[in-house]
């Protein structure tokens, strides 16, 4: 009985969200004031779940008949998902009014997508990964098309759904091949047999299909086609969640499944595949982002480039790589959500002000938002002392430790390219005069969410030691 209670307690982050979904459903059905209540309720649900995950980060245990793990790095992922989603909730309060649609389902779907992400991060069995993936993805498809009256939103939703389903097909096929060769779907058992299985061509094909499927989800080149259109078509706050939570969840699934590759006992045979994908994503994302005129599309291509940097950590195949990815994801979540948050505040009705040139002269019109966006841009460009820099630094350490110095060099070169388009936003805001006058609607909750992101970007950038210390202590 005590044991059951312990399991129940460890699972609380998920249970809180699960219960939150049900309560939200009731609020939406029975309360006339649901529009006022739901955003705050979902924020509180996310924060409660996140703080629980953070408070019990040290109690590592495997529960549910070896199907699910909690504690350690899993809880750090929970923290990324829930805090990211909390920021999205706060941003959406005023944004959805402008966007012209309020549906109670929005917050419900937000919660269910986070539940799916959490299932992926803690999975100990391929089926749980698949379950989580589908819960997350289906919520995302619906979120992308939330504004059903808009053509672009419909396009985004359909594109996301079709390509997402295609990717899921790869993953399921991969799982089938893995099961066929390993005779189990338990990740621990697969890991213990990995050394022999890696000579089995079918098994390797299975893992590769699995990786390709997730390459779609993390938005890596050449599986990135959906990214710019989906980000552009969906609501800005939701696009922020796709690029951060969705990416983090997919990375968590890869790390969970291939964890055995990273302890140094087995040679990482997927290194060439991962290295090539990393290089292509970094270079392609950075170069194409230069040509963008729409800020959401620019951030979409930047998201592809950042996926490339994180894959360097996978290609390195050591614990530093994993620690680097997790740190990078924490940093990326807050800097990118902050950037999307500011985009959502500045965006006017009917998707106005999304062009880059709308940002010219922002520094004189709204100095605070401009300063924050500049910080996010510098952080995304990887300039110290902001969080993005240390993420890149750590990932490059892992590459050099794995004797992939060339990969680190390609990484820094594409960083230089990316500096150009991040700086362009700063140039427009600070060095140019306004071309068009438009009023920016005040949003205190949105601003609060952005302030939280800025503080986190600075704090974990200046003092990365605690986060890194926490992550590495769980890996060894």
């Amino acid at each position, binding site marked *: 009985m005590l044991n059951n209670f312990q399991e129940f307690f460890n699972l609380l982050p998920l249970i809180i969200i699960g219960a939150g979904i049900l309560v939200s459903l009731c609020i939406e059905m029975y309360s006339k004031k649901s529009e006022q209540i739901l955003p705050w309720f979902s924020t509180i649900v996310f924060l409660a779940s996140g703080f629980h995950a953070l408070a019990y980060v040290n109690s590592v245990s495997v529960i549910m008949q070896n199907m699910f793990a909690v504690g350690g790095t899993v809880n750090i992922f929970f923290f990324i998902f829930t805090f990211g989603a909390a920021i999205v909730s706060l941003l959406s309060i005023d944004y959805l009014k402008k966007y012209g649609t309020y549906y109670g389902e929005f917050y419900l779907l937000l919660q269910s997508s986070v539940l799916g992400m959490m299932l992926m991060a803690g999975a100990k069995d391929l089926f749980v990964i698949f379950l989580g993936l589908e819960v997350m993805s289906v919520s995302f498809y619906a979120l992308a098309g939330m504004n059903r009256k808009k053509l672009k939103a419909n396009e985004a939703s359909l594109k996301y759904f079709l390509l997402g389903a295609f990717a899921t097909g790869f993953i399921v096929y991969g799982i089938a091949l893995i099961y066929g060769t390993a005779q189990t779907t338990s990740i621990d058992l697969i890991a213990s047999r990995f050394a022999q299985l890696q000579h089995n061509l079918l098994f390797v094909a299975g893992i590769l299909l699995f990786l390709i499927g997730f390459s779609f989800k993390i938005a890596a080149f050449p599986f990135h086609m959906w990214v710019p259109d989906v980000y552009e078509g969906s609501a800005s706050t939701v696009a922020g969640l796709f690029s951060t939570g969705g990416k983090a969840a997919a990375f968590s699934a890869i790390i969970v499944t291939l964890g055995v590759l990273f302890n140094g006992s087995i040679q990482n045979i997927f290194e060439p595949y991962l290295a090539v994908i990393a290089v292509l994503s970094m270079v392609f994302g950075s170069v194409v982002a230069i040509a963008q005129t729409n800020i959401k599309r620019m951030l979409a291509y930047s998201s592809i480039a950042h996926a490339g940097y994180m894959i360097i950590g996978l290609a390195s195949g050591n614990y530093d790589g994993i620690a680097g990815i997790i740190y990078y994801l924490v940093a990326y979540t807050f800097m990118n959500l902050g950037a999307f948050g500011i985009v959502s505040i500045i965006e006017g009705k009917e998707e106005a002000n999304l062009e880059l040139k709308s940002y010219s002269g922002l520094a004189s019109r709204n100095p605070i938002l401009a300063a924050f966006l500049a910080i996010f841009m510098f952080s995304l460009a990887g300039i110290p002392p902001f969080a993005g820099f240390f993420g890149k630094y750590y990932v490059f*350490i892992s590459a*050099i430790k794995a004797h992939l110095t060339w990969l*680190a060099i390609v990484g820094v070169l594409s960083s230089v390219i990316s500096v150009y388009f991040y700086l362009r936003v700063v140039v427009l805001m600070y*060095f140019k005069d306004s071309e068009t006058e438009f009023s920016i609607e005040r949003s205190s909750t949105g601003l609060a969410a952005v302030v939280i992101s800025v503080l986190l970007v600075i704090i974990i950038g200046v003092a990365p030691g605690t986060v890194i*210390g926490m992550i590495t202590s769980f890996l060894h």
Partner: protein
Amino acid sequence: MENNHLISYLLLTPLIGGILLLFINKTKENAIKYFGFVISIIAFIISLFLYTGYDITKSGFQLIDKFSWIENLHISYHVGIDGISLLLVLLTTFLTPLTLMSSWKAITNRVKEFTFFMLMLEVGMIGVFVSLDMFLFYVFWEAMLIPMYFIIGIWGGDQRIYASVKFFLYTMFGSLLMLVSIIWLAVYASTSLGHFSTNLIELYSVGPTIQSTIQNWMFLAFALSFAIKVPLFPLHTWLPDAHVQAPTAGSVILAGVLLKMGTYGLLRFCLPLFPQASIYFAPYISVLAVVGIIYGALVAMVQKDMKKLVAYSSVAHLGFVVLGIFALTQESIQGAVIQMINHGLSTGALFLLVGVIYERTHTREISEYGGIAKVVPIYATFLMIASLSSIGLPGLNGFVGEFLILLGSFKSPVLNNWWFTIFAASGVIFAAVYLLWMYQRVMFGEVKNPKMNNLTDMNKREIFILASIFIFIVWIGIYPSTFLNVSAKSTQKVIEQVMPTKTLSLK
């Protein structure tokens, strides 16, 4: 070792001051100006305590402050100074209040942001000179780009956007390759030290053990980054753009301190970390340095814009510094260190003087002037002193540095070739040509441009700023030992770090 927090106070003063500044209402421009000035003066006073606290009879780093920053990677906040960095820190804290004061009239819009960025720039510059941890150094080195980028981009001339982005991308390109080498070095250190290390003092023992081909690559990655900053010919193309477009304060800091970060980096990191590679590449880099001296001087000669002329003269002067560093003798390196200070003072003074006249006439074209010595006699005197100092007239500071560098490079065993000295010496003559010619065209003859008859001479504030610089210009010229003694032990140590391997490899 006992921790001494003096350097940390020095870093914190402008940092906290800058953050407090953000809370002042932006309409109270005078309050902002005085506040920024007072903060930078406090920083200067603290740096004087550094000077009194530093024991010049000892080599090695002093006033060290260290605590763990990122434990897992053995990265620590680790600062300390030796004679070389002490002089450069003093130069930084000395020039910052003066440039702030010089912009009281010149900068009229966004005063608050300007003062904030200047103070952040000061943090970055001091940080670069005092860091004893490669990671910390890199953070300061890169972070410093942000305020400079804004200073050029917001308060610069017509082409400011192009200049600021070019400046940023150029520097970033070099420094990111250096970042890869820093990480490589730190990973390599774990084989002998047992842990990942970016601690400079530990790396000093690791660096020389790297096998020579890899050492060459590492040296090149570091040297590229520093050479862009110096800037060494042919990587100098960002400099004229940045200088000409930057506001006066930006140019002074850029020429006075930022360029020194490149030469400081060569001296602090390249030479001691990669001694064999340094000796191997010394002749090649010296050739580039000498080409820079002559090229910079020749291009300066034909400039029509006063500021551009001074900018190109920087390329020539910094060529001397690099030659001095890579001649690898005690005299030449001492000369290089003192020349870094000299260049900061005399080029800083020249940029300030160009700024003074530009504020009144809004033109920097030499041909617009002529004969103004009669109209503005004080200005004419001041420009004369600054030009002579830059030319290297005996009795003023420039002579000391250039003489030591020429002397050292002449007898340098590493270069082992007189031609370096002979060509470099011709640069001194060219300097006299371009500066005196400029002086003649601006000051002497009849007043051709009727507008110039209404020029007002320098006011008390401007006289105060330049006079304080001139005190040091004369001091170094007449009694350089005050400054040479500070860096003597430290430069000697750099030679010792590089040279033992030379004697070994000769055997």
